[in-house]
């Protein structure tokens, strides 16, 4: 198991190299540079050239990338070119906000999705199933900015139950953004739960359990859900990873000071250092989260745990 974890974490290295290269390449292709966001009215040509040299804009993209990676290998994420602020500190100061929002969204999403998925599976083909499917489709297809604004209009503007934005009203500030994020998760996870449960519910061992007189609730909860959990956990893990990456749209609509907004601001100011730093740190979070999801499989499914802990058969030495 340890070896598996280490192997997965080591994959981070090539991922970071590739991601950083892609970011530098994309920013290089995008029109404008960091110098286009500042005013150069009174700069002499020599001063302008000095600025160009300071930001290495006269050098090829590969040089800037190599310089960045060299610093990164020494643990230095650098300072934002636009703001001069430390990238690590900027990211970390915002990460707790994104974490809170993501986990709140996770709780709402899971609390809605799994029961709905089970109900839909149990009542497959009925109007209840159609209703749940419709709800899932709305959750998946409605853009989060649209949903966010609808929630603000209904629950904040019309009935003044929750604040429209910001973060300083404590728990109340988190409700609407969490619902906006959570509904997306609820939609995808409900569909996944329904299809996994439908597959499992046809299994012979459930028929055996019912024949033995096990109460239906226990059949669903212990026997069916347990076996259907693997794809559900995958779906939840993927969506949570996306949420932790920072939903820039939800954060912008609700003025939530998270990492998504920071990344968008970095891109808009063509700040390669800050953009790269944010994306790399987000990648790390993504990979770690997916690793946790993989390890959870072992908890949920003893067969997978057995694979991790199985000793390799010894090779017989030929006489």
């Amino acid at each position, binding site marked *: 198991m340890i070896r598996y974890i280490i192997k997965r974490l080591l994959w981070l290295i090539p991922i970071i190299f590739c991601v950083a290269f892609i970011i530098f390449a994309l920013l290089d292709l995008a029109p404008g540079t960091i110098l286009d966001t500042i005013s150069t009215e009174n700069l002499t040509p020599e001063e302008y050239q000095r600025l160009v040299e300071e930001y290495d804009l006269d050098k090829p993209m590969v040089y800037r990338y190599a310089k960045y990676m060299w610093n990164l290998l020494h643990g230095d994420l650098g300072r934002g070119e636009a703001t001069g602020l430390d990238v690590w500190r900027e990211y970390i100061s915002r990460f707790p906000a994104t974490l809170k929002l993501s986990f709140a969204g996770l709780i709402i999403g899971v609390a809605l999705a799994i029961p709905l998925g089970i109900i839909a599976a149990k009542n497959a083909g009925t109007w209840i199933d159609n209703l749940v499917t419709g709800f899932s489709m709305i959750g998946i297809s409605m853009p989060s900015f649209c949903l966010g604004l609808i929630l603000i209009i209904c629950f904040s503007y019309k009935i003044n139950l929750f604040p*429209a934005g910001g973060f300083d009203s404590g728990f109340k500030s988190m409700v609407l953004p969490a619902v906006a994020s959570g509904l997306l998760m609820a939609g995808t996870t409900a569909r996944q739960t329904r299809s996994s449960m439908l597959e499992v519910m046809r299994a012979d061992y459930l028929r055996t359990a019912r024949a033995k007189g096990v109460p239906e609730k226990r059949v669903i909860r212990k026997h069916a859900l347990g076996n259907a959990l693997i794809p559900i956990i995958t779906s939840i893990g993927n969506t949570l990873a996306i949420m932790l990456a920072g939903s820039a749209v939800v954060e912008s609509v609700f003025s939530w000071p998270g990492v998504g907004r920071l990344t968008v601001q970095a891109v808009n100011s063509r700040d390669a250092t800050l953009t790269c730093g944010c994306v790399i740190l987000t990648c790390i979070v993504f990979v770690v989260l997916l690793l946790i999801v993989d390890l959870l499989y072992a908890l949920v499914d003893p067969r997978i745990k057995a694979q991790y802990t199985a000793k390799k058969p010894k090779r017989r030495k030929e006489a």
Partner: protein
Amino acid sequence: MKKVIATALCAVLLLCLFSACGGKESSNTPTPTAGTSPEVLEDKTTVVGAEKQEGAKYQETITIICDNTQMAVLDPASPQGGGQGSLMNFNCIHDTLVENDNGTLVPCLALKWDVEDSQHYTFYLRDDVYFHNGEKFTADDVAFTIEHAKAAKGGQAFNRLSVVESVEVIDDTTIRITLNRPNNDFLYYLYSPVCSILNREACEKDPEKGPWIGTGAWIVEKFVSNEYSELRVNENYWGEVPVTKKLRFIKVAEEATRYMMLMNGEVDVAFGCSPADFDSIRNNPNFNLFTYVITNCGFVGFNMTDPLMQDINFRKAVACLLNRSDIIKGTRYGYGALPTSGAFWGYTTPYKNEDLPLQEYDVELAKEYLKKSKYNGETVELCAWIPEFKTICQILQAELMNIGVKAEVFETDQAGFMAHCKFDDNKSMIICTSGGWTGYPSASVPFYTKGSTSNYASYVNPEIIELLNTAVSTKDEAERERCYKEVQRLSYEDCVYIPVMYIQHGVGAAKNVGGVILTEENTHDLSHVFKIIS
């Protein structure tokens, strides 16, 4: 049963499709009003809102929403320190040498000043001012501020203070500044919040947080870049101590969210609301709406390095297609001011040439100019990055296509726009944007200077440069006026920058909020904002 449900759903879908086509305008859609709102503030700086009352109780914390421009850093010299949020913070945290009181310069940290031939300035400073870290304010801090600004290339402070050639600290309360050449507007540069005075010791000790230390009425408690700042009152402020105890500036990206936060009472003052919401704020008895026209001139410009745009007949044809009233109604719901003349100039910037007639909307005249031009069927590109100006591009595109000119709109963000219209490598054709004007006339210089980022037209006219150099340095007032007006006339005749409108912004505030100082340059001062609660 399934067929019945499916049929019913299809019928509902068709009904929705038909109902979306045509029909009357919703009663909730704000009706664009024509022309400038009657409440527009004509003064350069105006205090708006409630008046302070004897024995009144004031709210301890005031929350203010800034618009969506940068609030990236709290260093006035930083190139990223030019957004409205940053400027409002600087006004609270810092002081400048002089202040602008409705166009008149009044003392602030400088008690008085002597000016010799517009090139040598001697300031006599206050002796009773301390920074937030306890350090006494001295002339050396002024010298440091200038050094710091000159080192931060590309910032607005650099643009203003790069004209300083040398600084001589005579004693703790006297400083002599020598410019590289005479400049009549130098004192006006100094009232800008980007020229706020910093403490040398604090900045040298901590380059990141040192600039947060000022002499102003507010002390920074917390700051998260581009999100929010929290300030607490400086009880030892050398001037009038504000009655409010805490200020919070928050940056809210969505216009709709800003409006709803104001309506909910989550914030007390909201800048950057959409003009579609202005009437709703004004008509609500619990709120006030204050509108102001900023000096910036929204304009259409032409890339003078493009072969087609070099043809004056084509430029004049485009000039005849600007239906300004409709543009203001369509983009600002009527909240905009029409230019009073054809001069490309700031709204209230001195020496505006009112003798230049504004080209009226005339499609037939546009067609005549087009016939005389070299246009031979190529597609013309209209470029913009500001939302209102993207809409102006679309309106102009329709007008151009109406007279037989193929046109496409190129929308981009700010960095992309600046790269597209770079002086030395200008790829644009027709540009729609807003120019950065201020209350002093030398703000026109960047639009005509070779290599300047504001010279979107890549336009170089040696005669204009000569006139501007004379105007900036001459002591003869009549000569200054003549030069500036001549610049406007030459630019008008070349038809390079065509004024379209002056944007009228609005700020919503709760009914009992007062002490808000609005300025035409968008450098509003909320250092003495208050809200009466009883």
